[in-house]
């Protein structure tokens, strides 16, 4: 075993500020060797980003780290600032998550990359040398246009900015690179490019890379070994191939199962009930015990240690010996696929949009898009940022007025809401409702849940006493009506948002990325809820998403948008399995984990052609 480049042992990060001490990370350990890529996987609140910051001594004020962090055998946690500064960037470097805030907006890109370079004597490089270096390093990250050196960050796209950030982080040739969610803020096609770039750079430079992500698929595809963090504690460690095939901890299993499969639709997604607790709430027991289906007294008696469960693998499940076979069985079970639904095409579509066009100044958001929604259907609108999918949704709802085109919702002309008379407008508003993406801002923070839902009920003429039943319908206890949104978790807030939408008994609900801001384990809950409500209440959905797996699960038909144009449409299985348009193909291929789908499809093609 080669000498580890980076070794963390028993790292603990606490917040000392304010009145209540909080623990962000309870106990974190890892080893990284040169040429290796390890992944730290966790949902929000797991503490993964803070771990990265702690390694470099960059914790925000008020947070304190204890434990050991060793780089090439030397302890670095307690080093004085001066020594730490030499290590930062020169030995260990960090790339941040959001390319739009990572770069100094007042500094040109080239300057970012070369400002720390020094020549052999330690002096600054000449202007010519700086420029040459800048161009060279930008080329290394895939930017061939030397003009970028003189541009400011605001003149570049997100993907380009991320590349510049990478170049800057690697300027002093560090041996270790920590990439904190390096692609989360980017479109899936750009994501793939950036991750591939990362791989190339690592191979070329022989670095060790720590990839922090919440996306399991990204971790499995890009990392050799993964560390699974939950509520501030490590629950499983192992090579990604093994962990994916055979998880050794109930949480990992749950995470794997609740990811919507990319390649087929299931009847109901397995999910983990509840939500991620704060570390202090579970510090004296197994952190996962509050949500684990196999929980016993031994799990809540004391925090289980992380022990080796197989060569190169570790698990913090104290009951692993007993339940191992059950876990394996569950993993192998193919969750019941959804039966092919023979939905009769309805005579009159519920929504009909024809040639909708909209521009904002000089930017064309929608360029003649047409779509239809039949009664009882769930139709997906898929695209990346800038595709116009959100604009289309807003036009359907009357939140935007299209420049051109015709929209009919439930028999009412909807493209010019202001022109309708009050009664018709009210009918229209009650026919179509929306669930937004961000659960944290879709509820009024100063109003109680009961007040917000009561108001919605009142619009439909239903009595306020129905709030309790409404909450139960979305899986929340009636007592929640007295609470304010701040007291609810993200998943719970989204449920309230859904309750608000169904309160007026609409025919159509527009779901604008309803799960992309939620943790994976909660996503599945919400998708299941939406599916159940659809059956119970006879709803139809317009489902906006950039996530193809979610589209596969939640929709019957799908429309693919690219830069304001409709490029492809059809039944979701057809479009995702056999994409006709080049862009759709690229989209499908960019999803991490997709190659397997493609290989399967290619194999199918061969057999179909009679193996000639």
């Amino acid at each position, binding site marked *: 075993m080669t000498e580890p480049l980076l070794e963390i042992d028993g790292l603990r990060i606490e917040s000392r500020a304010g009145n209540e001490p909080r623990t962000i990370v309870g106990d974190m350990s890892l080893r990284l060797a040169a040429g290796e890529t390890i992944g730290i996987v966790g949902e929000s609140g797991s503490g993964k980003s803070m771990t990265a910051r702690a390694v470099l001594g960059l914790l925000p004020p008020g947070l304190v780290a204890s434990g050991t962090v060793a780089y090439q055998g030397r302890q670095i946690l307690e080093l004085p600032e001066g020594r730490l500064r030499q290590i930062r960037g020169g030995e260990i470097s960090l790339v941040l998550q959001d390319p739009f805030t990572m770069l100094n907006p007042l500094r040109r890109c080239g300057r970012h990359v070369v400002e720390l370079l020094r020549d052999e004597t330690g002096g600054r490089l000449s202007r010519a040398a700086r420029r040459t270096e800048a161009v060279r390093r930008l080329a290394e990250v895939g930017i061939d246009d030397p003009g970028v050196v003189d541009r400011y960050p605001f003149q570049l796209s997100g993907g380009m900015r991320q590349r510049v950030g990478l170049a800057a982080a690697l300027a002093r040739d560090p041996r270790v690179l920590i990439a904190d969610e390096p692609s989360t803020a980017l479109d899936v096609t750009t994501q793939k490019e950036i991750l591939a770039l990362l791989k190339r750079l690592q191979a070329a430079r022989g670095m060790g890379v720590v990839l922090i992500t919440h996306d399991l698929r990204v971790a499995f595809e890009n990392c050799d070994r993964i560390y699974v963090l939950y509520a501030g504690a490590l629950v499983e460690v192992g090579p990604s191939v093994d962990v994916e095939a055979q998880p050794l901890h109930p949480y990992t299993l749950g995470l794997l199962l609740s990811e919507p499969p990319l390649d087929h639709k299931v009847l109901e997604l*397995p999910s983990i009930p509840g939500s991620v607790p704060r570390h202090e709430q579970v510090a004296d027991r197994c952190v996962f015990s509050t949500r684990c289906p196999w929980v016993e007294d031994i799990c809540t008696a004391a925090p289980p240690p992380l022990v080796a469960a197989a060569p190169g693998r570790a698990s913090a499940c104290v009951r692993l010996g007993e339940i191992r076979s059950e876990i394996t069985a569950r993993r192998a079970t193919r969750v019941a696929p959804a039966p092919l639904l023979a939905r009769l095409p309805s005579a009159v579509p519920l929504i009909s949009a024809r040639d909708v066009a909209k521009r904002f100044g000089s930017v064309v958001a929608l360029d003649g898009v047409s779509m239809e929604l039949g009664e009882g259907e769930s139709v997906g609108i898929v695209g990346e940022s800038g595709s116009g999918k959100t604009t289309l949704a807003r036009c359907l709802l009357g939140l935007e007025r299209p420049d051109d085109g015709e929209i009919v919702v439930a028999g009412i002309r909807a493209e010019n809401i202001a022109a309708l008379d009050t009664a018709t407008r009210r009918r229209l508003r009650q026919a179509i409702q929306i669930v937004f993406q961000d659960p944290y801002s879709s*509820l009024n923070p100063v*109003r109680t849940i009961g007040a917000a839902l009561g108001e919605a009920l009142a619009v439909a003429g239903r009595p306020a006493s129905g709030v309790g039943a409404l909450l139960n319908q979305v899986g929340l206890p009636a007592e929640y009506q007295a609470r304010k949104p701040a007291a609810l978790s993200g998943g719970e807030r989204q449920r309230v948002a859904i309750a608000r939408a169904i309160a007026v008994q609409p025919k159509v609900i527009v779901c604008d990325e309803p799960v992309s801001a939620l943790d994976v384990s909660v996503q599945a809950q919400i998708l299941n809820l939406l599916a159940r409500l659809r059956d119970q209440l006879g709803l139809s959905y317009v489902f906006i998403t950039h996530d193809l797996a979610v589209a596969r699960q939640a929709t019957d038909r799908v429309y693919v948008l690219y830069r304001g144009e409709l490029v492809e449409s059809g039944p979701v299985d057809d479009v995702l399995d056999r994409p006709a348009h080049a862009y759709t193909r690229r989209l499908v291929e960019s999803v991490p984990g997709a190659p397997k789908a493609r290989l399967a499809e290619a194999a199918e093609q061969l057999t179909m052609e009679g193996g000639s």
Partner: protein
Amino acid sequence: MSTDGAAIIVAPTRVGRRSRRRVPIPIVLALLFLAVVVFLAFFGSAVAPINPKTQNLNASQLNPSSHFWLGTDLLGRDIFSRVLVGSRTAMLGPIIVALGAMLIGNTFGLIAGYRGGAADTVVMRAVDLMYALPPLLIAIVVGGIVGGGYWAAVAILVVLFSPYDARLIRGATLEQRDRPYVEAARTLGLPTRRIMVRHVWPNLLPLVVANTFLNFAFALVTLAGLSFIGIGVPPGTPDWGQMLADSRTLIFTNPWAALGPGGALVLTAVSMNLVGDWIYELLSDRGRLR
């Protein structure tokens, strides 16, 4: 893993982080001081040891003594009593300015921010104009030329302060307007007025309250400045600004003539500022929009 089904999820009760912050000592003192000033504004003349209006030319320009605690002014009036009673003009005018500007500013700001259009243009242009000119100057010029005394000055300040408030509220409204919860309210078909008043404005409350306090402090200082120059209160009224102006003739003999009203003025303004800042932090911590 268990599937969701129709199970009712009972999550652990999230006790909102009610950080039991104790009120810091300076704030307690500030609140106490303000309470005293308010009390004096109402009952000052009853509490004052000597009638503040009584002139006694024989007792003019005396130094502090056991009878006249801060000495007497040019006309023999007791300075201490006048300081006490001066709290009336220190409270009354500024409160009206603060509340008036808040009312006008909030209305215009809300409408401008939420609906845009004509109201928005008016607010923006007005502020652009005002930004260039300090209110005090305009008050001096207009108040001085047109005359009208204290209440005219108060009215002028209400008009001059409103655009700043409107701009502040407009900005905050704009920030809220595009948030999903407001759009959800629009989608529900709720009337615009209801959305503005019942949905958006409550989220602006920390800003509004804190700003009112700060407005008060600023109005106090500006009005005092006006009376210092001689515009505003009629001569002879016990008013801290005017007393400060008068004290200059006594500067060589009785510094307390300046310290009394000056100190009262500064302490009141400081208290208001402190409380305003503190309220802002308090209100915006609880349930604040991320």
